[in-house]
């Protein structure tokens, strides 16, 4: 069986790919990059704003606000550069930049399950939540929930909790009671 190598989205280090991709992909990617750069710019402005509320000291004795001002201004500048680049530069856009269809469903359900795992961990305890999480994710990735998946879930869920809580003495909530 021959397998295709993993699609490398990254350009060669230091290089830049200037090939012209199909128009719809360029547009999709460009609008995403613009949103990303704009969000970065907004956050950078907020960061600088807060930095100016911190004590600045003097030039011969900088205070805790000096460095955040320097880096914040640099962040604003780089965000503007990113925005300009995302509007001007045409980059190669892989057709599968973001998942679609079944793949998107998998990513969304997996992400939701992982968030739920983290939220429920201190409430229901590591042993129960880890096993339930394992069972759900194994079933999600295999597209079926059966006894085999349940056995794997209990073995790995309980095993990992046991190692961290009992062996490594990590102060995780073990059980809800």
């Amino acid at each position, binding site marked *: 069986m021959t397998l295709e190598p993993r699609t490398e989205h990254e350009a060669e*280090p230091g290089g830049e790919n200037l090939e012209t991709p199909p128009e719809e992909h360029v547009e999709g990617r460009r609008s995403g990059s613009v949103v990303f750069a704009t969000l970065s710019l907004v956050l950078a402005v907020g960061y600088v704003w807060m930095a100016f509320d911190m004590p600045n000291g003097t030039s011969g004795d900088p205070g805790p606000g000096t460095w955040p001002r320097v880096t914040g201004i640099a962040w604003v500048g780089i965000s503007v550069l990113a925005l300009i680049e995302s509007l001007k*530069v045409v980059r190669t856009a892989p057709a599968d930049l973001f998942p679609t269809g079944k793949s998107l469903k998998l990513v969304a359900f997996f992400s939701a399950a992982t968030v739920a795992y983290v939220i429920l961990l201190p409430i229901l305890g590591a042993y129960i939540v880890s096993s339930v999480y394992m069972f759900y994710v194994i079933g999600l990735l295999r597209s079926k929930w059966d006894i085999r998946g349940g056995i794997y879930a209990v073995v790995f869920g309980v095993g*990992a909790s046991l190692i961290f809580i009992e062996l490594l003495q990590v*102060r995780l909530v073990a059980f809800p009671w």
Partner: protein
Amino acid sequence: MSATEGFLHGLQLAFTPELLLTALIAAFVGTLIGVLPGLGAVAGAAIALPLTFMFDPVVGLVLIAGIYVGAQYGGSTGSILLNIPGDSTAVVATFDGYPMAQKGRAGPALAITAIGAFIASTIGLVFIVYSSGFVASFAITFNAVDYFALTAGGLLILARISGGTLAQGLLPMILGVVIATVGMESTSSYPRYTFGNLDLTLGIHIAVLAVGIYGVSEILYLIEDKRQRASYKKIRIKDLVPSRSEIRQSWGPWGRGSILGFILGTLPMPSATISTFVSYRMEKGIARNKSQFGKGAVQGLAGPEAANNSAAIGSIVPVLVLGLPFSAVLALMISAMIVHGIQPGPLMMEQQPDLFWSVIGALAIANVMLLVLNIPMIGIWVRILQIPRYILIPVIVLVASMGVFSVSNNMVNLYLMLALGAVGYFLRKYNYSLASMLVGFVLGPLIEDNFVRGMRVSQGDPAYFLSSTFAVVIWSVVVLIVIGAAVRTLLKRRAQRRLLDSTAK
């Protein structure tokens, strides 16, 4: 203590049951991480990082370093057998390694990479042993100006080289630097960007950032990966023996790759990956049988594999001797040192020689263990390539989450890990360099410290930062690389547009 005495002393120190076991575990885990497709050395080391805080400093450091070197070893197994690189450093191994496997020479290809990696790492270690003292004695004269130039300039160079466009390298770098400003400022204890949350006053831990941006985003990529389970042919030990001709063709590339890799490893760049491409081009350039490249040329596999492993060893020099990491895994190593109260830098060899030399000694032992693990256990590694993702993915999440929680027994770490995971996922999707973010996070406080010291010494005169020859040289290189490359890209783009216009007409 001379370098040879120091190394022998380090070997002696490393020959304790505890360190031998650590080196073995690190070599095993590192190879495992390298072999598993998708899970790279950084994500693996990030997930293992919180666990290292539970042990002695030297054990923690050997674990991280062993995982790093082991991952370089293991990465090429998937490249050769399945045409699936375990990591970016193993991409070049697919060029000639996979064609060799298709010709029925998979065993020798694996043996050539394992032996080459051993030779390269050994040569790299010899260079470290004999160059560290010289570099340390030079670095001991550095002041705030030199350190500021080295850290800030090095970070800028790394960001420029790692990313595609200028912004793709610089934006994650500055994000790393600003995330590092969260928490109490070291000299005045003023809380910065904590929003009144007590849990944030200690700042964001590197394990949280590393597991978030690398670990979580890597898992999401694994889920998206639509490839089916790979099939493989059984490989027996006797199948591993290369022919005389294959060995003869490998010696030169092994040697050249080792020297090239070590030199590139000491520079601020993603050297392990870059060294493989440079070595491949070099081998192809000097080869008589150029037409064989891409069709299973032994030199095309042996050279880059040696370069990759030697670069991994070489990049440990700036970490141990200067306290400066220029790759994501080494940023994790530095943070492990700082958590253990070790101040890496030129004085480390003098003030903590036992620690310095035992790390070198343990690396040498881990290197031998890697050879022992890689050749006889090849059948097991091949089987590991087949671990179903439905088990691998949730197990990684459990280990990563519990590990991140254990850093300070705090749920905030887990919430931050998820948030940073989402950031890392989108950064990767838009081609932003995650390595410069992690290195920026580690170097940020060092840059700030040297900036403040410099301003105090000079009474606020910014020209002071150009008062040493070393600093002027570094900043000139930065200008050349950062601005020069941007100008070159602009000219290239203009030329391309002209070409497109003329074609349209």
